Structure formats: C-alpha cells, structure tokens
C-alpha cells in the first residue's frame, strides 16, 4: 500500500519548487515594468517641464503681455505721478500672482522647479529687453511708442481685444510665478553657476533682480554692473543698477548714472525712476 500522506507532502514540495521559477520570473517582470514605468514617467515629466514653457510662452503672447505691463505701469504714472512706478509695478505683478488662485496655480507648481524653464523665461525677458532697447535707442521710436500705447488703451473698450488681453495676462502669470518660486538662495546659486558658464546677460540680470528683491543690494549692484558690461542696452539692468545704488546710499551716483543713461537711450522708465529719486519718492 502506498503512503499517500508522504507522497502528497512530496508532491506539495514539488509543486512549490516548480512554481518558484515562475514566481521569480513574474516578480522580476513586474519589478522591471514598475521601474521602467517610473523611469518613463520621470522622462515624460522632464520633457513636459522643458516643453511646457515653450508651449505656454510663445513669442507673440509675450509681446502683448509686455505691452500690457507697460500700459499698466504707465497708466498709474500718468494718473498718480508721485508714486514710485517700479514699486507699483511690483505690486501689480504680485496682484497678478495672487489673483489666479484657480487651476493655473496648480500647474505652476509643477512647472516651477525646472531650471530649463528659467532659461526659457529669461530668454524671453532678454528678448524683451533687447526689443525695448531697440525701440528706445532711435528717437523715432520714442514718438511711435506713445502712439502705440493709446491704441492699446483704446482697444480694451472693444470686446474682442479684452479677451485676448486677459488670456495674455494668464501667460504672464505663469511665467512670472516661476520666478517667484525660485526666489531662494539655492536657485540663485544655480543660476549664478549657469551664468558663469554661458555669460548670458539675462541670467546676470535675473540674479541682480533677485538679489535686489532679497535686499542684498551690494550683490544686485554688482550683477547689474556685470550685466551692463556685457550688454549696455538693457534698460532693466540700468534701473536695477540705479536702484541698488540708491539703496547703498549712493544716491548721487545713481542720479548721475541714470541721467547719462536717459540722455543716451531716452528711456521712459529710467526717466521716471530718475524723477522719483530726485523727488525723494524712491529711497
């Protein structure tokens, strides 16, 4: 008579043994799939991070936002002549950040950590500055500028352009919010490292602005100076430079520099800042 119990036990062991390779293969394939999917997801997110700024900040909408910014800055200048334009501008930008507490803020969270995005952002700002300087240098442009602004002011009365402007505002919010999120020393050091590699004036200007915002006026002065040395036609750089000087109690030097710059470029913003410094509104 066969010993069934012993045979069953042996059979059970055999079955377990025979399933081990299958289990190992199954587990390893699952592990490989998980690792691969994680890897792919990471790559996707990276590509998204790099690609989204390109998609969200096309050149044309940015141009329109610039115009809107300028418009916004200038309108208070005309109505409230005594208030600091740049500080108002900041306030306005901050308002823009805080107002869209909708879905856009969530998207911003994912976009923000990318330094590539910063690059794109700065690339855009640089082009803006370059365009601004281009428009400012010839005196004819100065005449054309005021002509343009009223046009834009008139346009919001019509319904369709208002919509376009609103859309463009959102684009600005997206791009500028990323700047805010990288307002840390770590980010600045990373940008400095990148600047040291490629000597991009947009980066040095960014660093100068950030240091100015953080209250490190000495460094903001230095980086604005570096930016001016690389490209002396960037208006924002001169403004940061002058403002930093004022903050470093070098008001006279700031006035002198701004006067020189205004005489060369006929920059409105520089002129406004000069007025504010002279009137003592900007301290």
């Amino acid at each position, binding site marked *: *008579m*066969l010993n*069934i119990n012993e*045979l*069953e036990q*042996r*059979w059970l*062991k*055999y*079955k377990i*043994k025979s399933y081990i390779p299958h289990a190992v293969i199954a587990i390893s394939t699952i592990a490989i799939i998980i690792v691969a999917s994680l890897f792919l997801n990471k790559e996707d997110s990276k590509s998204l991070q790099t690609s989204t700024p390109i998609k969200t900040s096309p050149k044309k909408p940015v141009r329109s936002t610039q115009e809107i910014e300028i418009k916004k800055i200038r309108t208070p200048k005309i109505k409230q002549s005594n208030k600091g334009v740049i500080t108002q501008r900041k306030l306005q930008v901050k308002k823009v950040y805080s107002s869209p507490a909708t879905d856009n803020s969530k998207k911003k969270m994912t976009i923000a950590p990318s330094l590539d995005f910063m690059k794109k952002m700065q690339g855009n700002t640089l082009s803006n500055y370059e365009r601004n300087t281009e428009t400012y240098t010839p005196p004819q442009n100065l005449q054309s500028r005021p002509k343009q602004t009223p046009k834009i002011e008139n346009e919001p009365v019509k319904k369709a352009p208002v919509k376009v402007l609103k859309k463009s505002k959102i684009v600005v919010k997206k791009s500028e919010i990323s700047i805010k999120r990288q307002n840390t020393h770590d980010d600045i050091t990373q940008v400095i490292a990148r600047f040291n590699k490629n000597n991009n004036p947009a980066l040095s200007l960014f660093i100068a602005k950030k240091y100015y915002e953080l209250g490190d006026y000495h460094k903001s002065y230095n980086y604005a100076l570096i930016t001016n040395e690389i490209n002396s036609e960037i208006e924002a750089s001169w403004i940061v430079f002058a403002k930093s000087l004022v903050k470093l109690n070098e008001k006279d030097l700031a006035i002198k520099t701004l006067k020189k710059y205004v005489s060369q470029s006929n920059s409105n913003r520089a002129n406004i800042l000069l007025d504010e410094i002279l009137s003592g509104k900007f301290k």
Partner: protein
Amino acid sequence: MNSSIFENSKDVFLDTVHAKDYIQLDRVSTIYQSLKNSIKKPLKMVLLYGKPGTGKSMFLTKLYHDLSSTQDVYIYKTPILDESEFFKTLAQDIFSVNYKGELNFTQFMKIADSSDLNSVPVILLDEAQLYANELMEKIRLLSDTRSVKFVITLHKTEKEDLIAKEHFQTRIWESIELENASSAELKIYIQKKLMKANCFDSANMFNNKSVNLIHKLTNGNYRDTNKLLYTLFDLYIAYQDNQMLSNLNTNQVSNKLIEMSAIHTGLIHA
C-alpha cells in the same frame, strides 16, 4: 467507482512481455510489417535497435509468436554469455544435437553443415549488447554462412552504436529503429491497453491533457508509461481505501495523482 476497476486497470500496466499484450499502433505495425518482410528475404542479419523501453523485446516476442507456427524460430530473451553454452544451446534447439563437452564455433559449423534443414532457421537474440565482442564476431561469421538467420536487438546508446558499427555494419541488411511514442500514440496505447482488458471507464478517464502530462513525464517511453500508470492506479486504490476518492474528480485522471505517481516512480525528483 468500483475498486476492482482500478485493480484491473493497474494489472494492465504490469511490465510484462507477452505477445498478447502487444498493442497495434499505426507506426509500430508498419515497422512490424517491414520486419516480417525482412525475415522472408534472404538477409543474413536484421538489427532492431532503440532506446530502452521502446518495445524491442515486445517486438521480438510478437515476431516469435507470429512466425513460430510457420517457420523455425528460436528466441533467446536473456543472453547466453558463455560461448560454448551458446553454441551448445543453438545446436540442441536448432539441430537437436545434444553435444557433450565444450562446443566451439568450428564444431558448431560442422554440425550446421551436416544438418539437412529445409529452411533457414531464424534466431532472435534479445539484449545483444550484453554479448562479448568475440562472441558477436562469431555470430557475425555464422550469419555469413547463411546457415542461420539472426534478428538481434540492441540498446541504442553510444557504446552499443559502436558495437553495431564495428560488428554488423557491413553485414546488416536491414536495421529498424524503434522510437518512443508520440503523445497521440501514447493515448491510443493507454486506451487500447485498458480496453483490451475491458477497463472502459478507466480508458475514458484519459483525456489529451492528462496524456500530454504523462508523455511529458515519460517522454513517450512505453516502459516508463507502464510503470507510471501502474502506480497511478495503485494510488487510486489507496485513495479509495482511505475514503479520499471523493476529493478527486474520477471523470478524468487527476494530474495531481499523475505527478504523485511520477514522484513515486522516480520520474520526478522531488
């Protein structure tokens, strides 16, 4: 199910070599027919070879059974290793000469020459690989004289292949290789074997899936299959005796029991 069914089924797979147990399969019967035809021809020697358990002994037994009524056929299932004993046995069986003392090849040839047999006797030698090389050489010479016709079976291993090449290659006029059964053949083999013993219920229990598993375990070897199925039905009897048969589906053979049988017979090393 009645336990006697399992008992009967178990006995079907007892590893015995009887001509009545011969199962006719298409491929096997073709080979068998060609073997029978070869014997009718004036060939000196016919070699039947294959792996152990492919049915060589069964073939030889069947051949003996079929030819014995019409022809002088002598079968030696176990080898006679001593040379003198071998020739003495042949002399006695074929020529009815009871030789006293040592009988060598030359003396045997004299006896063969002096005999007046009408037909050439056929000697069937099973397990020829066990014969000594010298004796094999003499068997070869004996077949050359055409006084005796040999049908020998050899295990097909590397060593035995060498024997076949060295001793018989030039003299073998017919060589037949027997192979393991395919899965389909194995199913027919099992079912025919069971039905021959009137175990129809047991025969119906074997479906393609279970036969495939058996084929996988035995590689189609008839001897291993017999061993496995013998143990399988033994297990069924044990389950029935322990009143555990209700746990099993008796409509078809349990794969678990097949594997357990394979473990017991050593086909699976667990």
